[in-house]
């Protein structure tokens, strides 16, 4: 049940993009086409699910015992940046089809604050290792959902007579706002 609640919470109630403002750059940047948004979402889930347990281990076995809580940010980001680069190199060499599918999105993820955000959130919520992995997966799903929905709507907006000044990013932003507004329906569902 706890897992189910976390899933619902991370996808709908506290969606990282729509309610917590994380990962805005890729949210607006990679939501022009459905295919691209799927790839980006998949890559984010992938990296999050690997990065979160790693950072969790660092927090548990390095930062807490040595009382170095203030180094959390720098250590996490170092790990995430290296990890992303490593994954990219690995995929490029070993699994070229997967690299072609997700690899091009990987460099964008280093600067995706959603990954770091989730790693830190997991610590603040004091989840255990299994729950952290699950939470990061659920958050990634939430990101994917928001991204794909926005991409589908933006594809449709492309063939609409938008006012000239609304074309492109402004329309996407307003649409994201309305999406966030509609996700407020889930507010209070889990309390």
């Amino acid at each position, binding site marked *: 049940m706890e897992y189910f609640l976390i899933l619902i919470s991370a996808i709908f109630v506290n969606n990282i993009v729509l309610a917590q403002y994380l990962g805005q750059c890729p949210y607006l940047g990679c939501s022009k086409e459905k295919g691209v948004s799927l790839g980006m979402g998949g890559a984010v889930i992938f990296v999050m699910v690997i990065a979160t347990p790693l950072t969790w281990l660092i927090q548990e076995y390095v930062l807490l015992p040595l009382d170095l809580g*203030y*180094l959390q940010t*720098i250590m996490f980001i*170092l790990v995430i940046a290296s990890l992303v680069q490593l994954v990219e190199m690995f995929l490029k060499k070993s699994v070229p089809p997967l690299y072609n599918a997700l690899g091009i999105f990987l460099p964008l993820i280093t600067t995706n604050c959603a990954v770091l955000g989730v790693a830190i959130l997991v610590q*603040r*919520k*004091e989840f255990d290792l299994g729950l952290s992995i699950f939470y990061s997966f659920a958050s990634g799903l939430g990101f994917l959902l928001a991204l794909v929905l926005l991409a589908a709507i933006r594809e449709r907006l492309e063939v609409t007579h938008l006012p000239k000044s609304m074309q492109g990013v402004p329309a996407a932003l307003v649409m994201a706002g309305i999406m966030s507004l509609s996700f407020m329906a889930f507010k*209070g569902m889990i*309390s």
Partner: protein
Amino acid sequence: MREILKMIVVLTCISGISGFALSSLKQMTAPTIELQLLTFVQGPSLKQVLPDYTNDPVQERKKFTNPLTDKPVNVFPLKVDGELKAVAIEGFGGGYGDNIGVMVGFDLEDNKLVGIGITTMKETPGLGTRIAEPDFRAQFNGISESEAKLKSQGGVIDALSGATISSGGTVAAVQDAGKIYSALKADILEAFK
């Protein structure tokens, strides 16, 4: 090979330097941060506990060691016109979002609660956050520690409708503070008298 060596050296050096810089900065700022934390987190809650104190409890606080957990605990004296009215201790209880921190004021005379104040919480806005409202908090004024339980647990506190977890967390925090208080009471009396 040279390049790899360079990579390793550079990245290691940068990490090391930043580690050094940061830890130095941390040490430099640590006392200030603690004071700020007390002023801005615990400070306002002290006002909720006893609105009309006249001293500076943050400055006059004393550190004790919690015999239950061996962790340091701050005890704040609340004085009105120089006369010690109560001492305040922070306790924690699990809420919905995160731990709820509650500052509990104890009357040294009769060991009853003078009031409580919420220090930290991450509850659902509009639901759980209502624990910080005066109506809810007022229920704790003047009751004894043993009474400070939810009605369902045999106490006198009405839980907030729709925010049972938050209410329970508050009560647990009060109980936590009460435990610390009873454990430290003798030391406190000695220190502030």
